[in-house]
């Protein structure tokens, strides 16, 4: 089933940016994985997942984040999760959910910094067309 609404996957200077602003459901999550997968296939140097619009992080959403990072990881692309608010962070720690395998950053800006300078990345198609000029 294709949801009427899908979470946008934005490509900016070679980084895929996903900003969660709505509560995730199974249908939305499957669509998001497919869209991120397709985005990674077109070429990306990193994946940034912004959680600043999320009301809370339960075990379901943590697992979804881990799945996204694993998906990007097996395709050779690093993931940084960012934008967690302090009450969510406290809750996660006290729940004992293990997120140690996830790279995290304070906000989207820090996540993009962490994924490396944009100028060092040239998309594959662009690189080949430039070299012919």
């Amino acid at each position, binding site marked *: 089933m294709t949801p009427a*609404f899908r979470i946008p996957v934005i490509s900016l200077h070679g980084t895929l940016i996903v900003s969660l*602003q*709505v*509560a995730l*459901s*199974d249908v939305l999550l499957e669509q998001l994985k497919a869209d991120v997968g397709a985005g990674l296939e077109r070429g990306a140097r990193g994946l940034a997942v912004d959680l600043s*619009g999320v*009301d*809370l*992080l*339960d*075990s*379901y959403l943590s*697992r979804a984040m881990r799945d996204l990072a694993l998906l990007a990881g097996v395709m050779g692309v690093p993931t940084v999760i960012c934008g967690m608010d*302090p*009450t*969510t962070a*406290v*809750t996660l720690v*006290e*729940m*004992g*959910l293990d997120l140690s395998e996830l790279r995290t950053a304070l906000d989207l800006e820090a996540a993009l910094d962490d994924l490396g300078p944009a100028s060092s990345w040239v998309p594959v198609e662009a690189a080949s067309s430039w070299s012919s000029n």
Partner: protein
Amino acid sequence: MELELSAILSRHLGAVSVDAILRTATSRAGRGAGPLTPVRAHALFGAVRVGLRTFLADARRREACLDEVRTALGLPRAEGVHRVTGEADVVACRTAARELSASLGFTAVDQTKIATVVSELARNIVRYAVSGTIELKELRDAAGTVRGIEVRAQDQGPGIAGLDEILAGRYRSKTGMGLGLLGAKRLMGDLQVDTAPGRGTTVVARRHLAAARGAA
């Protein structure tokens, strides 16, 4: 919907405040044209609630205004029994939990913890029992003073096998099953489970206010 909300808010607030609240609400819930899904209704309600705290100091008048907004959005009262039959209900329940815990005077961190626990319990119902109920209620002492919140999750599902292993943290699975319940226990402290295969599951979790305070 925005027009209706605007009319309600205008009866309680000045035009500048109404404008500010609606602007935040629509930017958080996504603008106008879309259908009023439960998720959107809750996002709108949450934003209006936060906005009212800034612009309407009197707690009683705030509640009265919120009651009208809640009705207009077709949302149930936070306190009481919520039916859980799908993912939209999970969001509805945890929003209700946040709303009730906020009105009882819990801190922002505690609100998130309580909403997270409700999210875990409601999601377990959807995943394993298909349908059930979440009841939210305030805990009062003999003198009638609010002391905390109680969450009661009930279903007629298959029951939980290996409950002791799960709550002792000895249960490890790739699907993460059981992590939610263990997490909920860690967050609430006081959490009791009554379950048996074929008899369904009842989870009762309580959290007390750190200090006796009136509604914030």
